[in-house]
């Protein structure tokens, strides 16, 4: 059966290829996956919870290893005191229906059709001030003017914890307004942190991480993955006079993009010739 029996052009990327791709993204754009305060990121990167492997180009071009964030405020004296911390997402892997790269925790169940699963590790570390600092620290009074910046105590270690996280999602089918660049529209179906007690804490942190994944990580990674096939086909559009558009999801083509056989599949038509 021809690959192009449901559209003029067909493109597919295997989950193993995507996992190599994810490793390249993590090594070349580390600041997308590591967030830390200035003190940790620039002065004490060895304090990070997980060692960050970067490509030699990151070093050659002096790219940051972590994105800088504001320190964690200590309420209600947040204007006076804040703590160093870091947040890292590592070891990302993807699995497409029918599965096989990793086992899902029993909660989300087996990997259904047209679904992908993402596994990773989320770590957080807190720069807990030493007792000596707290003994010396004078709490501000209510009538005192706040300093320009809160005080952030230097530390020699971060208290870290890591959780394994599982994300399940699918890609929404293309609409008539989509182009090759906007074909991959990921949607989160569920997120699970493994074996965390108490449940309330797990749910809250899940929420936090869900926000991070849905708003930051998934869109950026989808965009990167979605570049592979259009880049290969680019010349047909630019130089050879063809106009490429996503094939509409209808009739025999129920999903576009589709996830099947451990692959992400894209179906593309040529505007003049589409039948």
């Amino acid at each position: 059966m021809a690959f192009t029996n449901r559209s003029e052009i067909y493109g597919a990327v295997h989950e193993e290829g995507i996992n190599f791709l994810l490793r390249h993204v993590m090594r070349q754009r580390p600041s997308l996956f590591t967030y830390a305060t200035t003190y940790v990121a620039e002065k004490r990167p060895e304090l990070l919870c997980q060692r960050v492997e970067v490509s030699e180009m990151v070093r050659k071009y002096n790219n940051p290893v972590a994105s800088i964030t504001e320190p964690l405020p200590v309420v209600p004296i947040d204007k006076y005191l804040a703590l160093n911390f870091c947040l890292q997402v590592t070891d990302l892997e993807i699995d497409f229906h029918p599965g096989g790269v990793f086992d899902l925790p029993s909660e989300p169940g087996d990997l259904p059709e047209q679904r992908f699963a993402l596994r990773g590790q989320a770590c957080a570390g807190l720069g807990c001030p030493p007792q000596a600092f707290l003994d010396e620290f004078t709490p501000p009074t209510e009538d005192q003017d706040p300093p320009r910046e809160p005080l952030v105590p230097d530390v020699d270690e971060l208290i870290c914890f890591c959780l394994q996280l599982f994300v399940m999602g699918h890609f929404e089918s293309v609409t008539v307004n989509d182009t090759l660049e906007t074909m991959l529209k990921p949607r989160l179906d569920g997120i699970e942190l493994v074996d965390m007690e108490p449940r309330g804490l797990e749910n809250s942190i899940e929420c936090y991480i869900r926000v991070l994944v849905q708003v930051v990580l998934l869109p950026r990674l989808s965009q990167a993955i979605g570049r592979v096939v259009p880049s290969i086909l680019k010349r047909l559009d630019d130089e050879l006079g063809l106009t490429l558009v996503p094939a509409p999801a209808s009739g025999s083509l129920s999903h576009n993009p589709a996830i099947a056989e451990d692959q992400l599949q894209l179906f593309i038509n040529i505007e003049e010739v589409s039948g």
Partner: protein
Amino acid sequence: MTHVRVAVSEAGIQQVFRNFVENFTFSRSDSNDFGRIEVGYELALRLTGGSIDLSDDGTVKLKELDILWDKLEGSIGFDIPAVCVGGGCVDIPFVGPICLPRWCIFEADPDIAIDLDLAPLVGRSEISGEFAPEVRNFRHPQRPATMDYIEAQTTKDQDGETFADKWRVHLDPRFLDADPIDFADRVADLIDEALNAFVDVALGGLPGWARDLIKGIIGNISDFVRNALDIVDDFDEWLSDIFNFSFGILDLVLDFFASKFADENHILQFENPLQIMEPVAPTAEVPSGLIPVKVPIKDPEATINTNEMIVTATVGASL
């Protein structure tokens, strides 16, 4: 294992091919001496029609691509021998056998130049051939050895081509055939008309009896010329042979077609490593900016079956 697979249907390849044909032009002029005749030509042509079939033997078959002659002009120049009177031998009593001198009508060996518009008289010529897909690695010949892949992608040469390595998928011609140029026998009439016109002009200032005498001595001007120049065939066959074999016009056309189609018109091209995330320009927060994210693409292959062209490749584990 194969990580990436892209397939383009037969209809897609046909569209690429149609685009190429619509934009194809070729023009050339040349001249050469063939014994005592100088023949020149000037041509300009386009292509039309043709069909593309993908075959299970792994090739793309091209059929019935027609050549459209926008211009096909020939020029023929030669000297004809002088036309003379007098001469002959006679036995004169007492003197003996005498061979008399000749006088020639033209002041010097006349040279003739005629121009022919051959485009309306050349028969249909069709091109057919076979192509097979090939993936080639393009390495820019001027890329310095020390240039890294990030610089290579952002640095361009004077033609706007980046220095990055590229994978290119070509349809490489295996063979190309064309019907030989075949002039209708009206070419002989055309040459005949041109020669007669030439003679009429040359003899224009003379009274009728002188014109008739000279034309009578020349006889059929085309036969006269063919005899003088040792042309055995009729003019249309002779000219076809010159165009096909001496000038090799169709060889030139096919060579040009092959190189243009195969070398310049790769169907797919992508840089290696392939960029999947754009670089970020320096900002106040990130003064160094962010480098682009690229993945290495390895072992690309292209195959053809009767439905589609398939290109496969692997994502490399490390850059």
